[in-house]
């Protein structure tokens, strides 16, 4: 149980198996590594003289399980393919964008840049360590792309080439446009205000020396010159938005804004030309500047790169194996066309929707359906892209590729959900819309009324009404709070996928854990083994290790630590959820659950003990060896459970595991509400029962078969090790240790409070300011300052959410040595 006493891998920091003897030499000292993959990567890094990587990294590297063969990338050397992914530029260079897996901290970026910089053919590599996107520019004549991709893969960062299209580039352009507009409005505002101050002082100077009329006219002219690009370039989006609103016959927020900017600017230009009357260039520039800041913050909130989403886009393989007659060749996925025939090897992902040509196949569609049950397919059945081939290699005829596939459709739905404005922001928008209608009516009434009272002041007062009541504070109140909160929890190790869920976080009464992979480390190990004596122990271990080596189930990893060589097997078959079988030296062996391995449904033969879950190795005559598997508790699990209980939350444990295993965990953690042997439907029913009795449920699952259950809970949190689609379906994804859960709840409460304060302030301010402005007590410049101050107050209030309260994170000593910090999303600011 004591994790810290264990030897951990120098590269990936996972426990080193007891019989593993591999070491790497660092500064003359041997350091243990856990497997051949990690050894290879560590040596690659050390041989390149880059041992600083291990000094600077703030998160441990991913365990290197297996590398794609170099031939996997060969398809990216064909010119037709390259032109598609990386167009040739005038200087003979090509540029490609890559999504890299397992970029965890700045040191990863450093490592990649250092190793690739050694290559003279590479002229530039830029890596964003936050979202794992890299842009690589290289000399296509000097080095092949396949070499570069294979090199990145060898370093442990599996690359996914991206094609140069998509919304992301649009968002990046939009961001640049915003920055330029803000700069022009901001600099223009400063200049014009300076002249305005000079003119105000000149106007009130009674010493007789007052401002020279020539200078006075000159300053107004210069102000006009500077305010013109501010109005026509920086404020263009408001005019466009207002025009769109008008043509759609609705009262959007842009309408009064555009009227105010347009009218104030037009009047100021007219007065400048006439040489008398007020000018409002300063107020206009300031108004545009603060409005743009607000829009920019909101834009950032919407376009935050959700790591979960991009990971899913990368879940399909980059290349496929194409079958043409009797020959096969590698082809990039993007080149795949309808009616081509592809081969999908065991354990690989189906690259496109298609029709099965073989007689039968076994697939895992958990990425699509959330069910980890193996699905049997017959010849002619439709296979969906994203499914994993669990059986023998299969061939399929492609029917739909790329954006037409089922997976792509689901991805788009999720992207749409992510890109949409949060529900509370939409509500504020709707209120703002009514508000705008009222403001327009009131402004007209004010104008008409003042035409009778004092026609000279009518224009100025109407302008003040329009500016002072700009509902930007109302529109900013929610998005800024949500963006800031998203950034704050990202630093604690939680990604917000669905920001609507912040609303619900505060009211959570029940926290439901799914045992596998949430409270435990998800890496079972063998804690007991009993040999029946039919075969010698070493033979049994070799057989067990050999059979499990072919499996892709998490339990199988435990067997890789057995102190024996792998026995060679032929005719291996995996039955998902039950076990493996295979032929060795003319005998059929099975390993798995007792019911499967012993072909014995009545459980007449019982395991040698009651504790833990037992796996049995058997031949046709009976059991040969028993293995008890145990999954270690996460070191921080107890502190988190107690922390939740102290907050007055009911903690539940629903698990598919056996009674003995579940109750042992529950007892250790002090959880009293326990259910075992739960199917997904049972879990869903249990959640419904809690909800019917008035509770609000936060469900924590590891993905795989939890996707529908996660959907049923009020708030769902997925572990980052789970299936990618389930992650995207969840409201939050936990990337750090479990302690982030308490931080998430704390932030949820604070966020809700800030949103309420903001909405109350915005509404209150407008209710007070409107009558004052209509009464003629507010000059346009005061209105612009008032509106800006109101927006600023709302924004600053939201920025308070940034504070990470370190004293409230219990158990932060546990798990990885350094947590948080490196997973910083671009927050508001």
């Amino acid at each position: 149980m004591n994790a810290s006493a264990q030897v951990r891998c120098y590269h990936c920091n996972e426990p080193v198996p007891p019989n593993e003897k591999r070491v790497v030499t660092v500064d003359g000292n041997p350091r243990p590594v856990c497997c051949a993959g990690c050894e290879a990567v560590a040596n690659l890094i050390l041989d390149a003289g880059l041992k600083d990587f291990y000094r600077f990294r703030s998160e441990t590297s991913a365990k290197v399980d297996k590398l794609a063969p170099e031939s996997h990338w060969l398809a990216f050397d064909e010119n037709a393919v390259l032109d598609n992914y990386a167009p040739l530029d005038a200087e003979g260079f090509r540029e490609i964008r890559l999504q890299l897996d397992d970029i965890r901290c700045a040191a990863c970026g450093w490592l990649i840049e250092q190793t690739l910089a050694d290559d003279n053919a590479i002229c530039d590599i830029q890596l964003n360590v936050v979202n794992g996107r890299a842009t690589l520019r290289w000399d296509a004549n000097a080095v092949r792309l396949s070499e570069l991709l294979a090199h990145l893969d060898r370093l442990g960062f599996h690359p996914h080439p991206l094609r140069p299209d998509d919304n992301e580039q649009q968002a990046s352009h939009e961001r640049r446009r915003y920055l330029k507009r803000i700069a022009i409005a901001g600099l223009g505002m400063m200049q014009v205000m300076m002249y305005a101050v000079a003119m105000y002082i000149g106007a009130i100077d009674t010493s007789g020396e007052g401002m020279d009329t020539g200078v006075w006219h000159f300053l107004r002219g210069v102000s006009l010159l500077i305010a013109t690009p501010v109005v026509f370039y920086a404020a263009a989006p408001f005019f466009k938005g207002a025009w769109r609103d008008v043509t759609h016959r609705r009262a959007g927020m842009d309408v009064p804004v555009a009227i105010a900017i347009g009218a104030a600017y037009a009047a100021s230009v007219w007065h400048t030309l006439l040489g008398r009357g007020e000018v409002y260039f300063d107020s206009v520039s300031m108004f545009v500047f603060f409005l743009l800041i607000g829009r920019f913050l909101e834009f950032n909130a919407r376009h935050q790169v959700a790591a979960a989403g991009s990971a899913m886009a990368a879940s399909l393989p980059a290349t496929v194996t194409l079958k043409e007659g009797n020959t096969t060749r590698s082809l990039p996925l993007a080149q795949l066309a309808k009616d081509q025939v592809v081969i999908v090897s065991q354990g690989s992902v189906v690259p496109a929707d298609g029709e099965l040509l073989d007689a039968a196949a076994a697939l895992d569609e958990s990425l699509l359906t959330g069910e980890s049950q193996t699905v049997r397919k017959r010849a002619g059945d439709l296979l969906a892209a994203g499914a994993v081939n669990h059986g023998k290699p299969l061939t399929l005829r492609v029917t739909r590729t790329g954006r037409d596939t089922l997976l792509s459709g689901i991805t788009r739905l999720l992207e749409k959900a992510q890109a949409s404005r949060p529900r509370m922001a939409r509500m504020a928008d709707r209120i703002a819309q009514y508000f705008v209608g009222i403001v327009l009516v009131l402004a007209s009434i004010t104008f008409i009324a003042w035409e009778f009272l004092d026609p000279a002041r009518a224009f100025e007062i109407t302008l003040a009404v329009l500016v002072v009541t700009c509902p930007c504070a109302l529109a900013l109140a929610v998005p800024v709070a949500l963006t800031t909160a998203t950034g704050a929890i990202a630093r604690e190790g939680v990604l917000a996928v669905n920001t609507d869920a912040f609303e619900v976080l505060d009211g959570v009464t029940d926290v439901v854990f799914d045992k596998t992979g949430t409270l435990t480390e998800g890496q079972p190990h063998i804690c007991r083994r009993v040999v029946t004596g039919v075969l010698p122990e070493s033979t049994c271990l070799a057989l067990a290790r050999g059979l499990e080596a072919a499996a892709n189930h998490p339990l199988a990893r435990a067997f890789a630590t057995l102190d024996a060589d792998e026995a060679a097997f032929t005719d291996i078959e995996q039955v998902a959820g039950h076990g493996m079988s295979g032929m060795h030296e003319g005998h059929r062996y099975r390993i798995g659950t007792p019911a499967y391995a012993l072909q014995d449904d009545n459980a007449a033969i019982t395991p040698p003990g009651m504790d833990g879950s037992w796996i049995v190795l058997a031949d046709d005559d009976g059991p040969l060896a028993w293995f008890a598997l145990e999954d270690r508790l996460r070191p921080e699990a107890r502190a988190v459970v107690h922390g939740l209980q102290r907050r007055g939350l009911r903690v539940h444990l629903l698990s598919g595991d056996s009674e003995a295993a579940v109750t042992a965990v529950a007892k250790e953690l002090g959880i009293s509400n326990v259910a075992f042997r739960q199917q997904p439907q049972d879990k869903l029913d249990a959640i419904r029962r809690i909800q019917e009795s008035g509770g609000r449920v936060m469900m924590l699952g590891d993905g795989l078969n939890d996707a529908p259950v996660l959907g049923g809970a009020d708030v769902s949190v997925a572990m980052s090790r789970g299936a990618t689609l389930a992650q995207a379906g969840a409201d939050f994804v936990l990337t750090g240790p479990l302690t982030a859960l308490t931080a998430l709840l704390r932030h949820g409460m604070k966020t809700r409070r800030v949103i309420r304060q903001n909405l109350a302030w915005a509404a209150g301010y407008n209710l007070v300011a409107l009558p004052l402005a209509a009464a003629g007590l507010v000059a346009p410049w005061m209105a612009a300052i008032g509106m800006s101050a109101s927006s600023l107050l709302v924004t600053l209030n939201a920025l308070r959410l940034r504070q990470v309260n370190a004293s409230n994170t219990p158990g932060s000593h546990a798990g990885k040595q350094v947590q948080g910090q490196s997973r910083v999303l671009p927050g508001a600011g």
Partner: protein
Amino acid sequence: MEIVFVLIPLSVLLLAIAVGIFIWAVNNGQFDDMDSPAWKILVDEEKRDRSRKERQHDQR
């Protein structure tokens, strides 16, 4: 006070230059990634361009 007729156009010119430089920087992608460069200062390394030229030199 006539000096303002020279100084103010001068300041406007400077403003235009500043805006021009900023727009160049934005278009050049200087503001695209605000997070990674902050990390890079933690790593001491030789200047990339020079070291590459030296390496090329060494190979010849």
